[in-house]
């Protein structure tokens, strides 16, 4: 059958003293997938990432990475990681840091220098290659961190808020880079609360809140047709309320906005209107924005 998932968590929990940071999370990320992991501050995103890397130990549950038990050296050799804090030994130069990580990642000596040079160019630090990291701005440190994550040609890249310190151009570069990785078959696990970023690059997302996953799926499915917008004649509103109940029906800019659960419900509503002799001029699906979804989930704790 298909190969094992790139990341697989089953029933993972993490307790810090009295705080339950992660609560019984099960999750699979397929090979080659660009996976977005969203959630408000303190939701447990970084904790999950650190458990996947074997930096932190789960209180309960099982984790597999690239088909190996979490923390195994073989799996780690193929993982690249950009930590949330992106703090590195700042007495090193950018080039030295990358060389060091290339060695740790077991990159063979004959390609190391070329790889380091290419990556520094990629993240826009070619001119600063031989400057110490202590002289870098925050954004430059994050760029070095990104290059560091990619230096071992990983099959799985785990980025914990990779653009938090970047300027708009840097953000776009990172987005492009993530897309490229995805196209090359690299699995990307992206922690973020930058919704537009996730919206633009991720195949699938999960939203986590208070340590539990509250929504998961393909982005377009999650955002799909939560509402439809109608331009219709007299009696449309009454028909909608009759079909779908009182809630979720309102007027916006002279149009009728109706919340529907799925496509069947939309079809039922339109049939009903036509049966009632209500002229329907225009119907369109209004995609929920990820932000709406995020806020709704974070506020209510469900979709």
């Amino acid at each position, binding site marked *: 059958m298909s190969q094992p998932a790139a990341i697989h968590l089953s029933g993972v929990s993490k307790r810090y003293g009295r705080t339950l940071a992660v609560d019984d999370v099960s999750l699979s990320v397929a090979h080659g997938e660009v996976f977005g992991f969203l959630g408000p501050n303190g939701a447990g995103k970084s904790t999950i990432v*650190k458990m996947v890397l074997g*930096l932190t*130990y789960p209180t309960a549950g099982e984790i597999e990475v690239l088909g190996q038990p979490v923390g195994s050296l073989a799996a780690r050799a193929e993982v690249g990681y950009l930590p949330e*804090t992106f703090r590195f*030994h700042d007495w090193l130069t950018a080039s030295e840091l990358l060389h060091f990580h290339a060695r*740790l990642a077991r990159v063979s000596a004959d390609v190391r220098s070329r790889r380091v040079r290419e990556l520094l160019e990629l993240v826009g630090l070619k001119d600063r290659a031989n400057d110490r990291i202590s002289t870098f701005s925050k954004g430059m440190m994050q760029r070095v961190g990104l290059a560091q994550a990619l230096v*071992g040609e990983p099959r799985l890249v785990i980025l914990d808020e990779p653009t938090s310190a970047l300027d708009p151009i840097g953000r776009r570069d990172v987005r492009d880079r993530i897309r490229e990785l995805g196209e090359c078959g690299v699995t990307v696990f992206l922690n973020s609360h930058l919704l537009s970023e996730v919206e633009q690059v991720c195949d699938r997302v999960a939203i986590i809140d208070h340590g539990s996953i509250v929504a998961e799926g393909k982005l377009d499915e999650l955002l799909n047709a939560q509402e439809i917008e109608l331009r219709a004649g007299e009696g449309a509103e009454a028909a909608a309320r009759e079909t779908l109940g009182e809630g979720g029906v309102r007027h916006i800019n002279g149009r009728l906005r109706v919340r529907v659960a799925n496509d069947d419900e939309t079809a039922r509503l339109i049939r009903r209107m036509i049966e009632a002799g209500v002229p329907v001029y225009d119907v369109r699906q209004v995609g929920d924005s990820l932000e709406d979804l995020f806020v709704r989930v974070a506020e209510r704790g469900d979709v």
Partner: protein
Amino acid sequence: MSTHLIAFFTLREALRRRVVLAAALLTLGYLVLYGVGVWFGYRDLQETQGGPPGLTEGVVSLMLVGGLWSLNFIASVLAVFLSVGALSGEVDQGTLHAIAARPVRRSEIVFGKFVGFTLMLAVFIGVSASLMILIVAVITGEVVGASWSGPFLMLLAAMLLIGLALAGSSRLSALPNGVIVFTLYATALIGGVIEQIGDVLESAVMFNIGVFSSVLVPTRAMWDMASAQLATGGFAGELSAGPFGASNPPSGWMLLIAALHLALTLGFAVRAFERRDF
């Protein structure tokens, strides 16, 4: 195996951060001062008429032991300062996250750092002790203390402190760890003094407290063995007791205890660090 990468990295960090440079400059200054002291001391000694036979050799040897005692102290402080924040300090700062996520065992991080710090201390003790022996030999014409065992025992003392500091650092952050390690170090020092007093007063309790403290932290015992090796002549042996050494040097068993101590602290450091969350 990545131990050597971490060890090399640790060495390079100390060099780059000017820790070594600062220590080297200070030690050089100290050696110059020491040389001046020995020169005047030796001149006065030669003007003294009479005295028991072997006085010159004894005093010269005492001057060397005193000098090495301060080098030993500097080495101890250096060992503790280098390693108190080596593990937890770096986890707290976040600088170890990306490294520990690489195909590197936690034990390799601990051993790598241990090896790195030990090499640094070996160079420090080797160079400064050799220079000191050379200074004394050139000024006085007496070659004393020219053996490997003294500096080796000094290094062993420093390694014990590194092991202790790494064990604490596997869980504690730099400041509380530093306080604990220095307290233990002071306990060993004071324990040595109590042991001597107990010996003089023939108080078994005091003597045993002293012995217990050297088993708990054998750094002082290492120095006592070193000074006994360095002090030549029966007369010097007696003179060098007091602040710089024990009147009766520890038995060879102490070496075994030191080795066990090191194995225990490093073993604890590895186990505790392997289990900690980042």
